[in-house]
């Protein structure tokens, strides 16, 4: 009837791997944030897949909460980037040492 769950899990693992590699490779803070979003989406996909495999609503509820936390995280993270940029034009991760105070 439907696609076996293993396919979704492999797809989510690949997406997570791409996100993790991008987080390490890119130096633009905004793009690093986008890579974190990729990893969060991979985990969400895994949650939904296990919710279907185990016939459990808990997986879908977890995705709901992950969405809320991701929204809050993006808001605070982008505010930090804007504050950093206002103090000194620093869009790359190498210049975040100005946060040392």
């Amino acid at each position, binding site marked *: 009837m439907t696609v076996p769950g293993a396919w979704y899990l492999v797809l989510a693992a690949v997406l997570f791997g791409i996100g993790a590699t991008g987080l390490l490779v890119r130096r633009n803070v905004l*793009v690093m944030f986008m890579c974190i979003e990729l990893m969060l989406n991979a985990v*969400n996909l895994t949650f939904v897949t296990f919710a279907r495999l185990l016939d459990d609503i808990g997986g879908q509820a977890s995705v709901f909460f992950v969405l809320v936390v991701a929204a809050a995280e993006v808001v605070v993270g*982008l505010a930090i980037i804007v504050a950093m940029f206002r103090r000194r034009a620093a869009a790359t991760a190498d210049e975040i040492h100005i946060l040392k105070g």
Partner: protein
Amino acid sequence: MTAALLAAATGSGAHLAHASAWAVFGVGAALILTGAFGVVLLRNPVHSALMLVITLIGVALEFIDESADFLAAVQIIVYAGAIVILFLFVIMFLAVDRREPAAPEPTRAQRPLAVLLGLVALAELLILSRVQHWSSGAHHVAGSLKGGEDVQKLGESIFTRYLLPFEMTAALLVIAVVAAVVLSRRHGRVAAEMSPAEQEEATLR
């Protein structure tokens, strides 16, 4: 869901439903991988943000394929509608897209090491999913998905079993809003006390 509707409409049985489920999965997977590689490989942050939208739509397609219709809608509305717009707004606001980092890589071996590390992590995940029997856990601990609409089940679950976490997300969102206001506030005089020239200068600063 989509597959079931298609099968019911045509009446040609489970074979077409099977094929359409695979088709949705394939299209979603292609969108996800295209978008993910685009986010990582494209130089311009605006292009990366647009590729992120493609990935998010692909994930929403996979949600639909797995009968999580409500989460697919929320995925589009919250992620593609709000979070990516926020990303684009900050990119445009800071004009990051015109600035290309000119400084050389401080640690030379970082990129090859990062790719290697990513591949190792991916291999580890795949091997673990092969060796361990993850999906043989307890079934429907928090309630079954069957016998009702997806939204109804999720709503019942969130407002009964997960009520306290749900209330905590409300607190979290308020804290995030306050934090965003505090972090992005300008120090010094407020705009109403400034002359137009000073306001212009403060905006550009």
